[in-house]
């Protein structure tokens, strides 16, 4: 091995060692005055959220309908996760940094919030931006700042907080909101529809290739608040957009709830690429605290030749419950799901995807990599459904699990439902630990055990990482190393 490489690896090791003692870096609290509702949920709260946002009548009706629906629903309990019952009356459903006049430039944003984002390494200042990333930052429940808005609007791209879109593009909201994920889809979508406070709205007009990557950073700051954001992305005919999402939260002993809904609509020939690096506070090594992440994400390939691709790196959250799905409605449409899910300490993840094939010649790919360490429980749960009319559907699924430590668990629950004889489905799953042979090989090349493990884990996840945009891939890799610290040996 060349000396340079050795040095580099050793340096990386030192970094890693430093990080062992490191606590959750994003675990600080920002001291900004905020306007937070008292905990509790009733129709009045829903009305107040709507009033705060100055929403038009149709939104209030939508929320109330969802709320009434939610009251009649039951919390789902089929997932392979175990958590204390959530008291929905102890959560505050709205929190916003105080005094928020309409902002025109960054100077008007509370410097403390900017500081927070700087600590998180989010390129909020345009001049500091990594080339071509437009950011919509959501702090607790409201969108703080959307960058690059002018550049985007020149291209015709609409990228704004959904609360503004309600006012500026009500026709689009009316048409698309809940068109992919119905309000009553599940317990958390109904709740989200009733109380969601903000999120991102993206519309790419026909034939436009979005000139830059769009990105949202979510942050929960206030105590005892829940975050309910809503993302809606529409790619009109022939459009293309790549969207990134990242999340962090302060370190607290209480569990906090995050229940988001993401809807994607891809029209004819359009393509949407949605990437997530989720790093909510995972709780400490005894499972105290951490975010409960109950998220519904679904995309519909409405038109022919459309494509939706989900990529996720899930390293945070105490509980992850998340199944980004694709409904392949148009002929020749393509759905993809690439996932790395890591559970360490007492983290639990039940995640996977659904691919519903409806159109002809549709194809889907599922690559899921689960890593369990410590007492982590990692579950892949997925459905591939081929409906009667979906001639020549094709699916390939691969779910690999890597176990580190003898007290963790890795589970795979794939469902395959095939109603068409021309379908071709393959599902493969393997579970194993890092092989002694691989470790031995790397160690006899002079790598320390940690460097060897890091290299193997990164190799294990490579298929997913290469789907991520460049900056995210680097971040994801780092995150993985950090999250796995202490899992080795």
């Amino acid at each position, binding site marked *: 091995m060349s000396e340079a490489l050795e040095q580099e690896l050793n340096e990386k090791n030192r970094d890693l060692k430093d990080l062992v003692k490191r606590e959750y870096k994003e675990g600080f609290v920002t001291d900004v005055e905020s306007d937070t509702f008292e905990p509790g949920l009733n129709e009045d709260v829903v009305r107040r959220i709507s009033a705060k946002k100055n929403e038009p009548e149709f939104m209030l009706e939508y929320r109330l309908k969802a709320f009434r629906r939610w009251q009649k629903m039951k919390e789902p309990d*089929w997932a*392979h996760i175990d958590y204390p019952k959530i008291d929905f009356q102890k959560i505050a459903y709205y929190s916003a940094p105080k005094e928020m006049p309409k902002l025109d430039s960054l100077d008007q944003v509370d410097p403390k919030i900017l500081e927070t984002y700087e600590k998180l390494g989010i390129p909020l200042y345009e001049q500091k931006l990594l080339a071509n990333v437009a950011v919509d930052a959501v702090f607790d429940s409201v969108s703080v700042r959307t960058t690059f808005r002018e550049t985007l609007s020149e291209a015709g791209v609409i990228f704004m907080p959904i609360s503004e879109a309600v006012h500026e593009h009500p026709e689009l909201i009316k048409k698309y909101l809940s068109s992919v994920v119905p309000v009553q889809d599940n317990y958390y979508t109904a709740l989200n529809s009733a109380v969601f406070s903000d999120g991102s709205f993206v519309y790419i007009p026909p034939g436009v290739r979005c000139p830059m990557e769009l990105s949202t950073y979510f942050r929960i700051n206030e105590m005892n608040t829940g975050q309910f954001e809503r993302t809606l992305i529409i790619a009109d005919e022939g459009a293309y957009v790549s969207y990134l999402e990242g999340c962090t939260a302060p370190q607290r002993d209480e569990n906090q709830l995050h229940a988001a809904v993401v809807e994607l609509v891809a029209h004819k020939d359009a393509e949407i690429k949605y990437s997530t690096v989720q790093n909510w506070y995972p709780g400490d090594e005894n499972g105290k605290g951490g975010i409960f992440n109950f998220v519904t994400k679904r995309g519909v390939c409405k038109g022919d030749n459309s494509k939706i691709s989900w990529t996720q790196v899930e390293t945070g959250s105490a509980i992850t419950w998340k199944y980004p799905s694709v409904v392949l409605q148009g002929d020749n449409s393509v759905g993809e799901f690439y996932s790395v899910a890591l559970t360490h300490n007492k983290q639990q993840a039940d995640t996977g995807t659904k691919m519903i094939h409806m159109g002809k010649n549709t194809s889907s790919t599922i690559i899921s990599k689960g890593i369990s360490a410590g007492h982590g429980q990692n579950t892949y749960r997925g459905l591939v459904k*081929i409906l*009667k009319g979906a001639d020549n559907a094709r699916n390939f699924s691969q779910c690999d*699990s890597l*176990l*580190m*430590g*003898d*007290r*963790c*668990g*890795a*589970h*795979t*629950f*794939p*469902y*395959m*439902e*095939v*109603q*068409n*004889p*021309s*379908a*071709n*489905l*393959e*599902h*493969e*799953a*393997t*579970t*194993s*630990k890092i092989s002694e042979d691989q470790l031995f090989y790397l160690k006899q090349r002079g790598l320390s055990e940690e460097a060897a493990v890091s290299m193997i884990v990164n190799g294990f996840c490579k298929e997913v990482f290469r789907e991520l945009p460049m900056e995210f891939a680097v971040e994801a890799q780092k995150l993985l190393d950090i999250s796995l610290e202490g899992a080795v040996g």
Partner: protein
Amino acid sequence: MSAKAMTIVADEADSWVDNYQSISPAGNHLPWLQAQRENALKRFAQLGLPGIRDEQWRYTNLRALKSNAYSVSAPSSLIPSQLEETDQPRLVFVNGHFRSDLSELKELGPKVSLLNLATALTDESSDLADNIANYFGKSLPQETHGFSVLNTAYARDGYVLVLEPGAVCEQVIEICYFNHGESQEANTVSHIRNLIIAKANSQCTIVERHMGDDGSVYLSNAITEIHAHENAHVDHYKLLRESDNAFHIGGVYINQDSSSHVKNHNIALGGLVSRNDIYCNLNGQGAHIEMNGLVLGKNRQHVDNHTEVHHVVPNCTSDEYYKTILDDHSRSVFRGRIIVAEDAQLTNADQQNNNLILSPHAEADSKPQLEIYADDVKCSHGATVGQLDAKSMFYLRSRGIDAESARALLTFAFANEVIDRIKVDAVRTELTQTIAGQLLAGLEDLV
């Protein structure tokens, strides 16, 4: 008791509970058995029959089964036409009752006992009674469903096979179950409970055949318990050739001690709706289970196979191989679950489920599941749904074989991979002929 009072409305749990009084109390003189039966009946009153809302039954609609009325039939004297001459040991049951006149009870050696459950329960020889008391119902899983508890409550007959330590039964034991419709008002229901106790270093081969009169409607609810002790070898075959209108709900529950080897072969050729739960607990190190399955669905058949292998201790291996061929409007469900407990290091578990769909109206649902709590393990599962390999088709076509024949040959080859795993020559030959007859009809010159 009038005939009317004995009719059971399948969908009404009360109806089964009420009817319990009218069936023979045989075996109730044994307190442990009476207790098990009464508990089971209570449990059934809570559970009822499963429906599609139950996760484990979501793909199997039992509407047709439930809309029928059933009655527990009295012993009949009918001689089934399908019964062929044999020189092997054989027990025959008709509508759930043992028929000594049709059975061949041979001397199987000093350390092997084979008899029917009803007789065994009244046998005063203490060894056998103790054996049954110690093992009966012990391999059944905690999480259960209505049919299984109903079986415990209702089953009055079946076979009991006990192999004392070191016993090797070289003859293939054949068990035949026949069912036929009896009355106009109600269909026959038979509950069968079998028990295999293979003690240390013993060995046996059992072939269970489930058959029925053409076209008759009946419900057959059969459970086999297998207890394989240290180093025991059990080769168990279940051949389902029920009538085209029949319902079969079956369970094979296996407990294995160290170094035991069990093979379970589950071949489903007939029946309208059939369901098989095959559960195995690997409780001793070095135990090995092999599960093979073949489904040949046609017409409106529905076959639902649920397998579960529980690796409780380290160093066990499991190998599962299920293949499905679906034609016409048939539908198959496969659920294969592998659980590796926290301490079960060095487990090696493999599972394959391949589905071949031949008709646009057929449906295949597959649910392979891995649940792993240990790290030093090798577990894999693979599931495919698809058609015949285009390259293989091309190869055969290029040799001058027409498309239809090529398809038939490849389909047969697909099924043959499971048949090849059958170790009993007679069964393998029989199945090869049956399946070849079904798939290769008219292609005799090719075979």
